Protein backbone atom coordinates (compact mmCIF):
# COMPACT_ATOMS: atom_id res chain seq x y z
CA UNK A 1 0.00 0.00 0.00
CA UNK A 2 1.38 3.41 -0.97
CA UNK A 3 2.04 6.25 1.42
CA UNK A 4 -0.79 8.21 -0.24
CA UNK A 5 -3.26 5.36 0.40
CA UNK A 6 -2.17 5.14 4.00
CA UNK A 7 -2.63 8.88 4.45
CA UNK A 8 -6.09 8.74 2.81
CA UNK A 9 -7.14 5.81 5.01
CA UNK A 10 -5.94 7.60 8.13
CA UNK A 11 -7.82 10.75 7.19
CA UNK A 12 -11.12 9.10 6.23
CA UNK A 13 -10.88 6.80 9.23
CA UNK A 14 -10.39 9.81 11.45
CA UNK A 15 -13.40 11.55 9.95
CA UNK A 16 -15.61 8.55 10.50
CA UNK A 17 -14.57 7.60 13.99
CA UNK A 18 -14.05 10.99 15.68
CA UNK A 19 -17.10 11.70 17.82
CA UNK A 20 -18.14 15.29 18.43
CA UNK A 21 -18.05 16.03 22.19
CA UNK A 22 -16.95 12.38 22.75
CA UNK A 23 -20.62 11.31 22.70
CA UNK A 24 -21.76 8.09 20.97
CA UNK A 25 -23.23 8.90 17.55
CA UNK A 26 -26.74 7.59 18.30
CA UNK A 27 -26.90 9.58 21.53
CA UNK A 28 -25.75 12.76 19.77
CA UNK A 29 -28.40 12.19 17.07
CA UNK A 30 -31.07 11.91 19.80
CA UNK A 31 -29.83 15.13 21.43
CA UNK A 32 -29.98 16.95 18.09
CA UNK A 33 -33.51 15.62 17.55
CA UNK A 34 -34.48 16.80 21.04
CA UNK A 35 -33.08 20.28 20.34
CA UNK A 36 -35.01 20.43 17.05
CA UNK A 37 -38.20 19.19 18.72
CA UNK A 38 -37.75 21.77 21.49
CA UNK A 39 -38.01 24.41 18.78
CA UNK A 40 -41.24 22.83 17.43
CA UNK A 41 -42.90 22.80 20.85
CA UNK A 42 -41.59 26.26 21.69
CA UNK A 43 -43.03 27.65 18.45
CA UNK A 44 -46.40 26.07 19.31
CA UNK A 45 -46.36 27.45 22.85
CA UNK A 46 -45.26 30.92 21.70
CA UNK A 47 -48.07 30.94 19.09
CA UNK A 48 -50.51 29.84 21.81
CA UNK A 49 -49.21 32.59 24.13
CA UNK A 50 -49.59 35.18 21.36
CA UNK A 51 -53.22 34.18 20.76
CA UNK A 52 -54.05 34.07 24.46
CA UNK A 53 -52.47 37.44 25.10
CA UNK A 54 -54.14 39.12 22.12
CA UNK A 55 -57.65 37.70 22.64
CA UNK A 56 -59.90 39.44 25.19
CA UNK A 57 -62.53 36.67 25.61
CA UNK A 58 -60.10 33.80 26.14
CA UNK A 59 -62.05 30.95 27.77
CA UNK A 60 -61.20 29.34 31.12
CA UNK A 61 -63.00 26.01 30.81
CA UNK A 62 -61.15 23.86 33.35
CA UNK A 63 -63.07 23.45 36.62
CA UNK A 64 -60.98 20.71 38.21
CA UNK A 65 -57.26 20.09 38.43
CA UNK A 66 -57.63 16.45 39.50
CA UNK A 67 -57.26 14.93 36.04
CA UNK A 68 -54.27 17.05 35.03
CA UNK A 69 -52.65 16.49 38.45
CA UNK A 70 -52.96 12.71 38.07
CA UNK A 71 -51.62 12.90 34.50
CA UNK A 72 -48.65 15.00 35.70
CA UNK A 73 -47.91 12.58 38.55
CA UNK A 74 -47.98 9.60 36.15
CA UNK A 75 -45.67 11.25 33.62
CA UNK A 76 -43.17 12.48 36.24
CA UNK A 77 -43.11 9.03 37.87
CA UNK A 78 -42.57 7.41 34.48
CA UNK A 79 -39.39 9.48 34.12
CA UNK A 80 -38.12 7.92 37.36
CA UNK A 81 -39.00 4.39 36.19
CA UNK A 82 -37.24 5.12 32.86
CA UNK A 83 -34.15 6.22 34.75
CA UNK A 84 -34.27 3.02 36.80
CA UNK A 85 -34.57 1.05 33.55
CA UNK A 86 -31.48 2.73 32.06
CA UNK A 87 -29.50 2.27 35.26
CA UNK A 88 -30.51 -1.38 35.60
CA UNK A 89 -29.55 -1.96 31.95
CA UNK A 90 -26.09 -0.49 32.57
CA UNK A 91 -25.65 -2.86 35.49
CA UNK A 92 -26.32 -5.72 33.07
CA UNK A 93 -29.64 -6.80 34.65
CA UNK A 94 -31.57 -7.55 31.46
CA UNK A 95 -34.80 -8.76 33.08
CA UNK A 96 -34.89 -5.78 35.47
CA UNK A 97 -34.22 -3.25 32.70
CA UNK A 98 -36.93 -4.77 30.51
CA UNK A 99 -39.39 -4.70 33.43
CA UNK A 100 -38.73 -1.00 34.21
CA UNK A 101 -38.93 -0.09 30.51
CA UNK A 102 -42.29 -1.82 30.20
CA UNK A 103 -43.56 -0.14 33.40
CA UNK A 104 -42.60 3.19 31.80
CA UNK A 105 -44.48 2.28 28.61
CA UNK A 106 -47.50 1.28 30.71
CA UNK A 107 -47.40 4.66 32.47
CA UNK A 108 -47.35 6.27 29.02
CA UNK A 109 -50.45 4.28 28.03
CA UNK A 110 -52.23 5.36 31.25
CA UNK A 111 -51.33 8.99 30.53
CA UNK A 112 -52.62 8.71 26.95
CA UNK A 113 -55.89 7.10 28.11
CA UNK A 114 -56.51 9.89 30.66
CA UNK A 115 -55.65 12.50 28.05
CA UNK A 116 -58.03 11.04 25.46
CA UNK A 117 -60.77 10.77 28.10
CA UNK A 118 -60.29 14.47 28.86
CA UNK A 119 -60.43 15.35 25.15
CA UNK A 120 -63.67 13.38 24.77
CA UNK A 121 -65.14 15.22 27.78
CA UNK A 122 -64.31 18.61 26.22
CA UNK A 123 -65.63 17.53 22.82
CA UNK A 124 -68.80 16.35 24.60
CA UNK A 125 -69.19 19.85 26.08
CA UNK A 126 -69.20 21.28 22.55
CA UNK A 127 -65.54 22.14 21.97
CA UNK A 128 -64.16 21.64 18.46
CA UNK A 129 -61.14 23.00 16.57
CA UNK A 130 -63.09 26.08 15.55
CA UNK A 131 -65.71 26.78 18.21
CA UNK A 132 -66.57 26.27 21.86
CA UNK A 133 -69.34 27.43 24.17
CA UNK A 134 -67.09 29.56 26.41
CA UNK A 135 -65.43 32.19 24.20
CA UNK A 136 -63.13 32.58 21.24
CA UNK A 137 -62.99 29.66 18.82
CA UNK A 138 -59.20 29.99 18.77
CA UNK A 139 -59.04 28.20 22.12
CA UNK A 140 -59.99 24.82 20.64
CA UNK A 141 -57.44 25.11 17.83
CA UNK A 142 -54.68 26.13 20.26
CA UNK A 143 -55.57 23.52 22.89
CA UNK A 144 -55.89 20.60 20.48
CA UNK A 145 -52.71 21.60 18.60
CA UNK A 146 -50.47 21.85 21.65
CA UNK A 147 -51.84 18.87 23.58
CA UNK A 148 -52.28 16.86 20.34
CA UNK A 149 -48.62 17.34 19.44
CA UNK A 150 -47.66 16.26 22.96
CA UNK A 151 -49.86 13.16 23.03
CA UNK A 152 -48.49 12.18 19.60
CA UNK A 153 -45.03 12.25 21.16
CA UNK A 154 -46.25 10.18 24.12
CA UNK A 155 -47.78 7.52 21.84
CA UNK A 156 -44.60 7.47 19.69
CA UNK A 157 -42.60 7.11 22.93
CA UNK A 158 -44.71 4.17 24.10
CA UNK A 159 -44.16 2.43 20.74
CA UNK A 160 -40.41 3.19 20.84
CA UNK A 161 -40.09 1.97 24.46
CA UNK A 162 -41.88 -1.28 23.61
CA UNK A 163 -39.76 -1.96 20.51
CA UNK A 164 -36.45 -1.04 22.17
CA UNK A 165 -37.37 -2.99 25.33
CA UNK A 166 -38.24 -6.13 23.36
CA UNK A 167 -35.12 -5.88 21.19
CA UNK A 168 -32.97 -5.28 24.25
CA UNK A 169 -34.48 -8.38 25.86
CA UNK A 170 -33.86 -10.32 22.64
CA UNK A 171 -30.20 -9.25 22.60
CA UNK A 172 -30.36 -7.07 19.48
CA UNK A 173 -30.04 -3.79 21.40
CA UNK A 174 -27.81 -2.88 24.34
CA UNK A 175 -27.95 -0.67 27.43
CA UNK A 176 -27.01 2.43 25.39
CA UNK A 177 -30.20 2.05 23.34
CA UNK A 178 -32.29 1.97 26.52
CA UNK A 179 -30.53 5.15 27.67
CA UNK A 180 -31.16 6.85 24.31
CA UNK A 181 -34.90 6.03 24.24
CA UNK A 182 -34.91 7.21 27.86
CA UNK A 183 -33.59 10.62 26.75
CA UNK A 184 -36.58 10.94 24.43
CA UNK A 185 -38.98 9.95 27.23
CA UNK A 186 -37.51 12.52 29.62
CA UNK A 187 -37.94 15.13 26.90
CA UNK A 188 -41.66 14.26 26.55
CA UNK A 189 -41.93 14.70 30.32
CA UNK A 190 -40.07 18.00 30.15
CA UNK A 191 -42.46 19.43 27.55
CA UNK A 192 -45.41 18.57 29.81
CA UNK A 193 -43.84 20.76 32.53
CA UNK A 194 -44.58 23.76 30.28
CA UNK A 195 -47.89 22.56 28.82
CA UNK A 196 -49.52 22.09 32.26
CA UNK A 197 -49.06 25.63 33.60
CA UNK A 198 -49.72 27.50 30.35
CA UNK A 199 -52.50 25.43 28.78
CA UNK A 200 -54.28 24.07 31.87
CA UNK A 201 -53.49 25.99 35.05
CA UNK A 202 -53.68 29.46 33.50
CA UNK A 203 -57.10 28.54 32.09
CA UNK A 204 -58.68 27.37 35.36
CA UNK A 205 -62.17 28.67 36.00
CA UNK A 206 -62.03 30.59 39.30
Amino acid at each position, binding site marked *: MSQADLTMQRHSGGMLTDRPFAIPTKKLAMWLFI*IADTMTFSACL*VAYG*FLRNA*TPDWPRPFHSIVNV*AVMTFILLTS*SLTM*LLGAQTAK*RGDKAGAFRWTMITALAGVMFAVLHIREWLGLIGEGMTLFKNPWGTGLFGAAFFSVTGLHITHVIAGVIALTIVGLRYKGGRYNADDIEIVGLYWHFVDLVWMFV*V*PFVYLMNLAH
Partner: protein
Amino acid sequence: MPTAAELKREGIGKYLVVYLCILALAGLQFVIAYQNITASQMFRRMFSVALVEAGVAVLFFMHLWAEKRGFLLFVVIFAVFVLLSMQFGWTDSFRLIHCGGYCS
Protein backbone atom coordinates in the same frame (compact mmCIF):
# COMPACT_ATOMS: atom_id res chain seq x y z
CA MET B 1 -19.11 5.71 31.39
CA PRO B 2 -19.47 4.51 34.99
CA THR B 3 -18.75 0.86 35.75
CA ALA B 4 -21.41 -1.55 37.01
CA ALA B 5 -19.86 -1.43 40.49
CA GLU B 6 -19.97 2.38 40.51
CA LEU B 7 -23.60 2.32 39.38
CA LYS B 8 -24.46 -0.13 42.14
CA ARG B 9 -22.83 2.16 44.74
CA GLU B 10 -24.57 5.21 43.28
CA GLY B 11 -28.03 3.64 43.80
CA ILE B 12 -31.23 5.54 43.15
CA GLY B 13 -30.99 7.89 46.16
CA LYS B 14 -29.86 10.90 44.11
CA TYR B 15 -32.53 10.36 41.46
CA LEU B 16 -35.23 9.89 44.09
CA VAL B 17 -34.31 13.28 45.59
CA VAL B 18 -34.38 14.89 42.12
CA TYR B 19 -37.76 13.22 41.42
CA LEU B 20 -39.22 14.51 44.70
CA CYS B 21 -37.89 18.03 43.96
CA ILE B 22 -39.53 17.99 40.51
CA LEU B 23 -42.76 16.68 42.02
CA ALA B 24 -42.69 19.47 44.64
CA LEU B 25 -42.08 22.10 41.93
CA ALA B 26 -44.98 20.70 39.87
CA GLY B 27 -47.12 20.92 43.04
CA LEU B 28 -46.03 24.53 43.48
CA GLN B 29 -47.42 25.35 40.03
CA PHE B 30 -50.81 24.02 41.12
CA VAL B 31 -50.65 26.22 44.25
CA ILE B 32 -49.79 29.28 42.11
CA ALA B 33 -52.82 28.53 39.91
CA TYR B 34 -55.11 29.22 42.89
CA GLN B 35 -53.40 32.46 43.97
CA ASN B 36 -55.38 35.65 43.58
CA ILE B 37 -52.94 37.42 41.23
CA THR B 38 -53.01 38.95 37.74
CA ALA B 39 -52.45 36.80 34.64
CA SER B 40 -49.03 38.36 33.97
CA GLN B 41 -47.89 37.73 37.57
CA MET B 42 -49.17 34.17 37.32
CA PHE B 43 -47.35 33.67 34.01
CA ARG B 44 -44.07 34.97 35.45
CA ARG B 45 -44.28 32.72 38.51
CA MET B 46 -45.31 29.63 36.61
CA PHE B 47 -42.68 30.17 33.92
CA SER B 48 -39.93 30.58 36.53
CA VAL B 49 -40.96 27.35 38.28
CA ALA B 50 -41.23 25.49 34.94
CA LEU B 51 -37.73 26.68 33.96
CA VAL B 52 -36.22 25.41 37.23
CA GLU B 53 -38.15 22.14 36.90
CA ALA B 54 -36.99 21.62 33.30
CA GLY B 55 -33.41 22.60 34.19
CA VAL B 56 -33.24 20.02 36.97
CA ALA B 57 -34.73 17.35 34.68
CA VAL B 58 -32.28 18.12 31.84
CA LEU B 59 -29.23 18.24 34.09
CA PHE B 60 -29.92 15.16 36.22
CA PHE B 61 -32.55 12.95 34.55
CA MET B 62 -31.08 13.46 31.08
CA HIS B 63 -27.53 13.46 32.52
CA LEU B 64 -26.49 16.64 30.70
CA TRP B 65 -24.50 17.56 33.81
CA ALA B 66 -22.35 14.43 33.34
CA GLU B 67 -21.60 15.16 29.67
CA LYS B 68 -18.58 17.14 28.51
CA ARG B 69 -18.78 20.85 29.35
CA GLY B 70 -18.43 21.70 25.64
CA PHE B 71 -21.57 19.74 24.84
CA LEU B 72 -23.46 21.28 27.75
CA LEU B 73 -22.54 24.75 26.48
CA PHE B 74 -23.47 23.79 22.90
CA VAL B 75 -26.96 22.65 23.97
CA VAL B 76 -27.60 25.57 26.32
CA ILE B 77 -26.30 28.36 24.07
CA PHE B 78 -27.95 27.00 20.91
CA ALA B 79 -31.30 26.31 22.58
CA VAL B 80 -31.43 29.61 24.49
CA PHE B 81 -30.51 31.63 21.38
CA VAL B 82 -33.28 30.10 19.26
CA LEU B 83 -35.83 30.25 22.09
CA LEU B 84 -35.09 33.94 22.66
CA SER B 85 -35.30 34.74 18.96
CA MET B 86 -38.86 33.34 18.94
CA GLN B 87 -40.04 36.06 21.31
CA PHE B 88 -40.22 38.86 18.73
CA GLY B 89 -44.02 38.56 18.36
CA TRP B 90 -45.07 39.49 21.89
CA THR B 91 -45.11 43.22 21.32
CA ASP B 92 -47.58 42.68 18.48
CA SER B 93 -49.91 40.66 20.72
CA PHE B 94 -49.90 43.51 23.27
CA ARG B 95 -50.64 45.96 20.42
CA LEU B 96 -53.63 43.83 19.38
CA ILE B 97 -55.08 43.57 22.88
CA HIS B 98 -54.66 47.30 23.64
CA CYS B 99 -55.58 48.81 20.26
CA GLY B 100 -57.63 46.07 18.61
CA GLY B 101 -55.18 46.07 15.70
CA TYR B 102 -55.98 49.67 14.66
CA CYS B 103 -53.01 51.54 16.11
CA SER B 104 -49.48 51.40 14.74
